[in-house]
Every structure is written in C-alpha cells, then in structure tokens.
C-alpha cells in the first residue's frame, strides 16, 4: 500500500522543488508550475496550440506509419536472409548513429520545408529503430519452434502465421514504441529548425518574457510521449501477455 504512494511522492517532491526554484529565479528564467498553469492552460484551449499540435502530429504519424510499414518487413527480411542482412546491415548501423539534426539542412535542400520534408525527416529518424527492433526480435525466434512447426506439418505460410507472427508480436509493439519516440523527437527537430507547426510554437515561446508558455509546451510533449508509451505498453500486455519485458527502459 505504502509503496504505491512513492511515485506520487517523487513527482510531488520534484514539483515542489520546481515551484520553490521558480519563485526564487522568476518567470523569465524558470516559471514555477503555478505560473505555468495560470499562463499556459488558457492558451492551451484558446485554439492557438491544440490545432497546431494536431496538424504536426498528423504529419508525424504519416512519417512514422511509412517508417513502420517499411521497417518491419525490412527487419524480418534482414533476420531471415543472410544476403539481405549483409547488404543492409551497414546502412542500418549508419542510420542508427546518424544525427537527425544533421540531416535537416540536407533534406531542406532536397524537399523544401513543406509536408514532404517533415514526413521524410520523421521517416528517416524512425525507420532504423523500427527495423533494428524487429530484426532483433526475428533473430530471437528459436529455430526449434519452427522445427516443432515442421514436425506438425505446418506449411511455410502456416508457420509464418502460427509461429513467426505470434513470436514477433511483442517486438512489433516495442518497435512501435521506440519508433514513435524517435518520430516525435524528429518532428520537434525539424519543426523547430524551420519554424513551423508545433516547433514554431516552441521556438517563438522562447522569445517571450516568461518561460511559462515554453514549459507548458514541453509538458504537453512530455504527456504525449508518456501517453504513447502507456498505450503501447497496454497493447503489449493485451496482445502478448506471456511476454515480460525485463527492464523498464
């Protein structure tokens, strides 16, 4: 009973410290939570934030959807085919370490600053992580399970549906979770750099006298990330209840 209160205590403690620090430093340096509520909440609902956020999210989701649709088969293919793995793995390793921010100036030259630019940045940020996670999951499929399938005379299609797919399920969801986080990050990077959408709100709020709106926008992003993670974790325990993730990371 007492243990379950600890997370709330931790959050309360951090909020309290923030409030105290904010009051001492002043709104210009660090607006306290109370100021964020007073100044940001009305702004959140006056129509200047939520529609912009929805529009940004729509483009982010398109980029992420493409990355997922492309990354999942690529990951499976890499895990199942040695040749394809040898061809694609160096690019995967490069893609994982490449900084999204460094891609932004290049993509602006290639795609301009509109819809296709934002979608392709998000795509490039998420696709590697989706592919890598699915790859690791597909590599982890115990060949003995497939042998059991063959022993029971499962055809290739049957063994895909009955063995591969269920075994991959948890990884498909982890891939979505990691992919979405990278997609949100990429969205912010791209939009802040070219000052459009939600990124523009963040950029412009940095110019205002109070840090309250800026902190409010950050809290919205935080809530968004937490919400996405939460939904996908729930989905995981619903679709693949037998799979226990070891670490919370």
């Amino acid at each position, binding site marked *: 009973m007492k243990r379950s209160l600890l997370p709330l205590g931790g959050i309360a403690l951090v909020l309290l410290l923030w409030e105290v620090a904010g009051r001492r430093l002043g709104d210009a340096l660090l607006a306290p939570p109370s100021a964020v509520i007073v100044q940001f909440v009305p702004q959140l609902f006056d129509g200047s934030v939520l529609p912009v956020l929805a529009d940004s999210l729509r483009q982010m989701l398109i980029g992420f959807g493409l990355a997922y649709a492309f990354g999942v088969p690529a990951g499976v293919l890499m895990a199942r085919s040695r040749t394809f793995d040898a061809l694609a793995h160096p690019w995967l390793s490069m893609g994982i370490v490449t900084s999204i921010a*460094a891609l932004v100036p290049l993509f602006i030259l290639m795609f301009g600053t509109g819809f296709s630019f934002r979608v392709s940045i998000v795509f490039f940020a998420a696709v590697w992580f989706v592919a890598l996670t699915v790859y690791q999951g597909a590599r982890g499929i115990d060949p003995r399970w497939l042998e059991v399938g063959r022993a029971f005379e499962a055809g290739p299609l049957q063994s895909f549906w009955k063995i591969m797919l269920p075994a991959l399920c948890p990884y498909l969801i982890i891939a979505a979770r990691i992919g979405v986080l990278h997609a949100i990050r990429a969205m912010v990077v791209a939009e802040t750099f070219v000052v459009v959408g939600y990124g523009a709100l*963040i950029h412009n709020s940095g110019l205002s006298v109070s840090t309250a709106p800026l902190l409010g926008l950050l809290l919205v992003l935080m809530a968004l990330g937490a919400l996405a993670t939460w939904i996908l974790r729930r989905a995981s325990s619903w679709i693949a209840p037998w799979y226990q993730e070891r670490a919370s990371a």
Partner: protein
Amino acid sequence: MVWEAIARRLPHIVLPPPSIVLVRLAQDLLSGKLVVALLGSLEALVLGLALTIVIGVPLGFALGRNRTLAEMFDPVLNALYAIPPVAFVPFLVIWFGLHLPARIALVFLMSVFEVTVAVSVGAREVNPRLIDVGRSFGARGFELTRKVVFPAALPFVFAGVRIGLVRAINGTITAELFFAAINLGAIMNEDATRFDTAGLLTVIVLLALLGLAAQAAFARLEARIVPWHLRPAA
C-alpha cells in the same frame, strides 16, 4: 549501389552519388577544413559527455540499488526522457546563451538519460547470489559496493556510456546547428546556403563514420577492461 544508380540519373544538387561524396570527404579532410572543425567540436562533446558520466553513473547506481529512490524518481526520469531534447533549446538559450555552455548543456541533455537508465538497470540486476558471497566473506557497506556491486554492473556502465557517446556526438552537431553555428555546424550552414548537397552529405557521412568508429573503439576498450563479460550476440 542503389544510391549511386539513382543519384547518377538525378541532378547533383538533389542527390549527389556516393563517389562524389567520398572524393569530397577525402579532399576536405586533407585540406584540413574538416579536421579543424572536428577538433573544435570536440570541446563541447568531451565536456558534455564528461558531465553526463559524472552525473549519470552515480545517479544510475543510486536508482539501481535503492528501491525507494527508484520508485520515487523513475516516473520523473521517464517523463523527462519523453521530452525531445531539442525542445529544450529555447530554454537553454535563456539560461546559457548561444555558445559553448549552451552546447555543453544540450550534449549533456541528449546523453544523460541513456547512461543513467543503462547503469540503473545494470546495478539493479546484479546477481544477488554474488552479493551473498561478498557478505558471506565479510564485505559490508561501501566495500561491498566497491568490490562486488560495481564490478558486476561495470558491463552495463560500458554499454550505457557507449550509447551515450553516440548520443553525445549527435548532441554536438545538433547544438552547432541550433545555437550559434560553429565548427561543423557552420560548414553545414554555408553548404546549405550554396545549395551544396555534396558538402552537406560529406559532413553527415563524416559524422556517421565518426559515430561508428567511436562505438567500435569503445567496444575494444570494453573488451580490454571487462574481458569476463561475454556479450550476448547482438
């Protein structure tokens, strides 16, 4: 190959083929232009990463070994981790300006969570039987931490710092583009205004190679320092 084939058909401004990029990379490295910029970038990278290690490793150990602390602060940490680091940029400008301190701060922000989380997982998962052995032979308190918990978690510390290193390299170039453009970021800005896609790609490839090289070098260091650790096949 696919890149080369497609790129040869497109105008070079849109996508230059890899052959041109590689030649350009060699040229700019030999002329010293990229080398000077790279050395300049190292300052924020090294300082930011050092800050991450100094703060992230002990914090990770504290969260990993103390259940109460972990339950109190894991949600806070996860929440902060969910915020894209670049969203902090306007905030960092207010606090640290546009130059070195701001860049160090962004490098730190982009790498500290990875290190903290990896170390806390490692410290949490130390085999309790090894701790029993330590206690059985009379180790207690700090000595138990130093002689048993720390070496047992060391492979995780390395894994965390390896990821943190790559994130820190990303943080460095991000900072050079988002604050006052400098070093590699300045080169990219110039290239962009001249519509020089080959130049941009050169820097991107250089950074990616740097990231891979840093990872590989670190993995070798790891094999030297923690030779007992048989890494599971990645």
